[in-house]
């Protein structure tokens, strides 16, 4: 199997004082570890998130995503290493005033209306965003008088998103924002997040869906077993995770093909070969040109989930 690995783990970033006037990074984790009893949830994480970045923390369940976020939010303290948010300790009220958060479960009081909850949360912050603005940005216009307990799953999720925007935050942290939503609600939710990103807000979100990370993020950090195993743009991550699967029958030289550009790997499955390629078109063209008898060709978009699971599995090997 030939896969170009990015160097893993990345060496700890050098500590440099910020250039004069340059804003401090939105999030900075240095050598962060977190143990729960005997369980090591994080085993040395270094991560710097710059201003304006939209970063996805991608990983399977139990990889350490939620733990990492709860350290960034000051809900827990690291066992080792340091966590800085916007240059400060995350648990300080002054830091919290600049961060908006959406957690996985946060059943708000069901008897209060959308408008009341938005006003209540706005009252927590020194310089809140106007209520109409918050409600519009979360796609909740027209639902101001609806009680929280009467909202649909997608609406409720957008309410939590609205509550995260109330303080006009510089950094928004979202933990698995679309878990449990149907496809349509999920897409609608992605739209509101994209709009926030276009607004220039720094966004850090955890997800176990590569599709979601790909749709929203400018940077994907893949976490597994408490470590960062990949860090790159969605294109880079997807390239590593493999684009399409070509299945073909014929007299082909797998070792040869695996060295072609755009080929991730070649495997023999039954009587056919499976070529996982990032550049399926190029590989097919060359395949037709260089191989006499290719037949029974199918080309299939790799399910992103499969690709992503492969990526994590490779890390374990």
């Amino acid at each position: 199997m030939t896969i170009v690995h990015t160097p893993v783990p990345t060496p700890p970033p050098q500590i440099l004082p910020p250039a004069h006037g340059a804003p401090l990074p939105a999030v900075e984790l240095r050598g962060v570890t977190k143990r729960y009893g005997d369980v090591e949830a994080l085993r040395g994480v270094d991560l710097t998130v710059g201003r304006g970045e939209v970063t996805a923390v991608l990983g399977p369940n139990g990889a350490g995503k939620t733990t990492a976020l709860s350290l960034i939010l000051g809900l827990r303290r690291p066992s080792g290493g340091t966590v800085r948010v916007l240059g400060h300790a995350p648990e300080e009220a002054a830091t919290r005033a600049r961060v908006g958060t959406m957690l996985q479960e946060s059943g708000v009081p069901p008897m209060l209306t959308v408008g009341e909850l938005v006003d209540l949360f706005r009252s927590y912050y020194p310089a809140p965003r106007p209520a109409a603005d918050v409600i519009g940005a979360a796609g909740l216009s027209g639902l101001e008088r609806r009680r929280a307990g009467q909202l649909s799953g997608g609406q409720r999720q957008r309410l939590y998103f609205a509550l995260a925007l109330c303080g006009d935050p510089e950094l928004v942290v979202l933990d698995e924002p679309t878990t449990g939503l149907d496809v349509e609600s999920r897409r609608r939710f992605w739209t509101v997040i994209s709009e926030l990103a276009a607004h220039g807000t720094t966004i850090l979100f955890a997800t176990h869906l590569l599709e979601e990370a790909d749709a929203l993020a400018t940077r994907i950090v893949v976490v597994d077993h408490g470590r960062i195993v990949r860090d790159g743009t969605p294109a880079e991550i997807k390239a590593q995770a493999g684009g399409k699967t070509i299945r073909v029958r014929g007299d082909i030289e797998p070792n040869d093909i695996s060295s072609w550009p755009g080929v991730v790997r070649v495997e023999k499955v039954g009587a056919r070969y499976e070529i996982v390629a990032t550049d399926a078109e190029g590989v097919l063209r060359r395949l037709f040109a260089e191989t006499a008898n290719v037949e029974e060709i199918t080309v299939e978009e790799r399910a992103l989930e499969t690709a992503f699971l492969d990526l994590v599995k490779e890390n374990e090997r």
Partner: protein
Amino acid sequence: MTAIAMTAATMGAATGPKARLFMLQSLAELRGHLRAPDFAAATVALPIVLYLIFGAPRATENIGNGGTVGQWTLVGFAIYGVLSVVLFGLGETVASERGRGYVRLVRVTPLPVAAYFGAKLVFAALASVLIVALLGVAGALTGAGMHLDRWLAVAGILALGGLALAPIGLLVGFLARPNGAGAVALLLLFPLSLAAGTFMPVEQLPEILRQVSQLTPTYHLAELARWEAGFRPGAQPLVDVAWVIAGAAVAALIVAVTYRRLVGRQFA
């Protein structure tokens, strides 16, 4: 409600952002409860209904120590009401908000956690005052013969007493499973009201229960209220005050320790 909102807003403007924050939080807490009909029925209406059933028919009957059945039962059901506010309005609510992750969401905002819990205490105090006031009206209408100034003093004792019982509610909120908090609250409500003589005078309980009763804060709160109402001449009010305060202090200490423990776990 709009009137309350406006009052809160104007008072807030006059007393600074912290006070305003606290006021708005308390207002939200009140709104949430007032809109839940089950709360109004179970917590506010039930003690009054119980008084009307068990106290009102014999309200004027003398019980031989300077009081009437009406006065005795009014105090008993007032304590029952205050206790159910503390156990259900405070305890069950905190347990369910804890279970639903709302406490965690509040923790990541700049709102001081003290304001979040403080607003719940404001609600508990106001609901207690409401229950005592309604019982006072019911007592007056049924001829229990409590003088207004006496009842106002009793109401004050019970409202403060409610705050002294509040740590018990918070403890239920922190320790009970979110789905089981209602049951735990009920299990505490019954013996603690029994100790307050809500259902029958403590003197008529079996010896062992009587002795256990005297260890509870509700027993002493009831003694204090009945002494103030004027039909408990043998009572020792300072001893009762000490018991109530000591009970509150012990419970508050346990609450503080429990909260610190939870912050590292469920609230994170």
